[in-house]
């Protein structure tokens, strides 16, 4: 096979299908000053046995570390990018190779800081790892990177939190890269609660090996403008990916989420469930592609996207896509967009709830199956975030971000 020389990457314009509904200009990638990595003097956090390890970053600096010594002894690596240069180098080159525009390559050209989780073959870390990235700076471009490598038949769970206070105007251009060895089992949960003026760009990818399993959950809640992309490649025979997402558009938020599931080996399975709700003047876009390569016979793929329009004038675009290049497959997708079922609302009003309350309860109920997939220690918080986003808790005054 001859590979054509890659032409130089350009910024994506409106003719680029992926960027048709979001303008790259809003991320100020070319104009904002790039944040400089700061020297870290991390504090050793008290050992918490419910976690395998914890890393806290504030404004690009590592500020807190906690790591199970037993796992350290088993040669698990959990630390900053410098802790495993060979893993990071490999991941960065994968990210660069996958980039198709300057918007997807820019992160890899100027990684500011980040974390690595590397688990050797046949090591199982049962408790979750936690990475917390907090940003207080304003007027900067920050580019955190997280690289995960799981060796053959290893197991790990990682929870990543991105957050910033309300009112700070800055851009985060992040990426998470995941490479899973044969038979590895990995569980990744991402909770993003940036402030209301943040611009959030993310280009993540995962390569899943033979018989490996990847469970993914994400909740991009915050940000003024959000554009994320997660490319899952089912590279090994028998590999599987399960990905869940819940997202909201409130006030003037603009959220454009894209996932692609590429089946590149036989007997691979993927399942994707994404639910969103919009209100006010917000707009959400969900793009979900299932691609089946000619070699991927016996593929079983399903993708579902459900959108709830809470108030008139809010907008939800749904673009599920299938690109199938062989016939021995079972692939389907479904998409629904609508409002809360009026019959259900009526039922609840007969039980003494107001119409408004009834609508909010039903809307909350729709997200229950996704809240259940969140890491146990985050479930209450996610439930509260959902209630705020759909307007249920707003009346209680408990949803205001601290200014």
């Amino acid at each position, binding site marked *: 096979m001859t590979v054509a020389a890659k032409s130089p990457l350009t910024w994506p314009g409106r003719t680029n299908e992926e960027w048709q509904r979001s303008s790259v200009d809003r991320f100020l990638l070319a104009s904002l000053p790039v944040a400089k990595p700061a020297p870290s003097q991390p504090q050793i956090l008290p050992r918490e046995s419910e976690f395998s390890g914890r890393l806290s970053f504030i404004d690009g600096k590592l500020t807190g570390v906690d790591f199970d010594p037993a796992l350290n002894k088993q040669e698990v690596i959990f630390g900053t990018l410098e802790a495993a240069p060979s893993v990071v180098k490999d991941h960065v080159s994968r990210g660069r190779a996958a980039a198709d525009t300057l918007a997807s390559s820019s992160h890899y050209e100027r990684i500011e800081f980040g974390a690595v989780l590397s688990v050797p073959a046949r090591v199982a870390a049962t408790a979750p790892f936690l990475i917390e990235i907090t940003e207080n700076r304003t007027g900067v471009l920050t580019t955190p990177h997280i690289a995960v490598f799981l060796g053959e038949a290893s197991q790990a769970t990682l929870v990543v939190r991105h957050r910033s206070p309300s009112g700070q105007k800055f851009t985060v251009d992040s990426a998470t890269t995941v490479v899973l060895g044969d038979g590895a089992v990995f569980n990744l949960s991402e909770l993003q609660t940036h402030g209301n003026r943040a611009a959030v760009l993310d280009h993540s990818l995962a390569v899943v090996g033979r018989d490996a399993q990847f469970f993914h959950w994400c909740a991009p809640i915050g940000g003024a403008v959000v554009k994320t992309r997660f490319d899952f490649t089912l590279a090994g025979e028998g590999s599987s990916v399960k990905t869940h997402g819940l997202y909201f558009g409130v006030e003037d938020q603009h959220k454009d989420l894209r996932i692609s599931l590429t089946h590149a080996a036989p007997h691979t399975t993927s399942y994707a469930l994404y639910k969103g709700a919009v209100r006010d003047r917000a707009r959400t876009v969900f793009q979900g592609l299932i691609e089946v390569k000619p070699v991927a016979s016996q593929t079983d793929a399903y993708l579902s996207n459900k959108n709830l329009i809470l108030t008139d004038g809010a907008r939800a675009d749904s673009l*599920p896509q299938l690109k199938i290049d062989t016939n021995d497959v079972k692939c389907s997708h479904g998409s629904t967009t609508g409002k809360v079922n009026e019959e259900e609302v009526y039922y609840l009003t007969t039980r003494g709830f107001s119409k408004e309350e009834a609508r909010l309860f039903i809307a909350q109920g729709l997200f229950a199956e996704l809240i259940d997939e969140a890491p146990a220690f985050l479930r209450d918080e996610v439930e509260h975030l959902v209630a705020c986003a759909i307007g249920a808790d707003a009346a209680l005054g408990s949803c205001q971000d601290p200014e």
Partner: protein
Amino acid sequence: MSSEMIPAENQLGDDFAADYKFGFSMPEKSLLKSAKGLSEEVVRQISGAKNEPSWMLAYRLKALETFRKMPMPSWGADLSGIDFDDIYYYSKPSEESVTSWDDVPEEIRKTYDRLGIPEAEKKFLAGVGAQYDSEMVYHNLQKNLTDKGVLFSSPEDAVANHPDIIKKYFGTVIPHTDNKFAALNTAVWSGGSFIYVPKGVHVDIPLQAYFRVNTKSFGQFERTLIVVDEGAFVHYIEGCTAPVFTKDSLHSAVVEIIALPGARVRYSTIQNWSNNMYNLVTKRAFAWDNATVEWVDGNIGSKVTMKYPAIFLMGKGAHGEVTSIAFANKGQEQDTGTKIMHFADDTSSVVTAKSISKSGGISSYRGLIKANPGLRNIRSKVECDALLLTSDSKTNTYPIMDIQSDDVSMEHEAKVSKISEEQLLYLMSRGIGEEEAGMMIVNGFIDPLVKQLPMEYAVELNRLIELEMEGSVG
């Protein structure tokens, strides 16, 4: 001037010609043929040949400008094989359109006799039009319909005799600025059908037009305008074939339908162009208050088809339905789909799209469902099913749901599968041969579309699919 038929197989060494029943061609005997390529002169020549009023010529010339300015579509099928300078834009086969079959020139009549048109008319249809290259050569309508004021003619005839209707509706549903191929059609259009059904008139049996291309390197640009007045009904059927030539041909039609309040229009077409035809068609309907528009669309032939019948639901209570089937065999790309725009309250739409791909054929579904803000009670349901017969078949599904109103119920579903081993095994255990069992399953798959067609078309479609299916199972 021999009237001997040239078997298509001799013209083309390619094996796909052999199965194409309509692959014969008659020797070309055009009365008037424009020079190859597109120029202002060609447009003036076409307009002059039709003795058109100056306003139509002016409109054509404006469209030609638009065509030159507009870029080729950057998405969809590969259109790089089209050379606009290597196409004949106009070919007039006979003196004028006639209303008695016996008056159709002998060779043209022979073509249609072979395609079975006159029998079809006698048995099943209220009216028939037949277009050969650029011009309608035959148009007939049952007398009781003529008496009721139903008009069924070539659009040229309508320009001359009903300029009021043409001026009011022509180019209003699909303006020449819509896309490059709509601009091209508007500049060089020739032939097609014009239908007007007056208020409250119910045309019980279908009207039909048949399109045939006979000239090599030819572009057929028919223009169809259907206006159905308040409370009226019509079912219009269209069929298309062409001989298999060694050079690619282009078919770029524009079809505009206006369903006025309370009207119902059904438009059925089975496209079976030869496998070297670029079929790039713009079809769109406006449905006003409580009107219903139904597209029934079969795409079996052509090399490349890009066709997305659209319904704009303009009035309160309007309803739109699209039922389509595409079969992409070796070397074919069927890029089809639907666009439904909900512009009014209480509007509903149903889309059922089925495709079958075989031996490297590519079938794609592109769809758009849009609901504007502030609308109440919008319902839409889209179902796309793709069947893949061989391991090298390809299918793509690219739907877009753009919903901006909160009082909407929108559902989309798509499935891709092959003929299931279990179903095959079951049928074979009942003593049915593998090939026949496969055929039965495919017939079941396309059944929702077939059911929408008049019986004789359903039979024809089943037969065409059977032909395409040969040797694909087992």
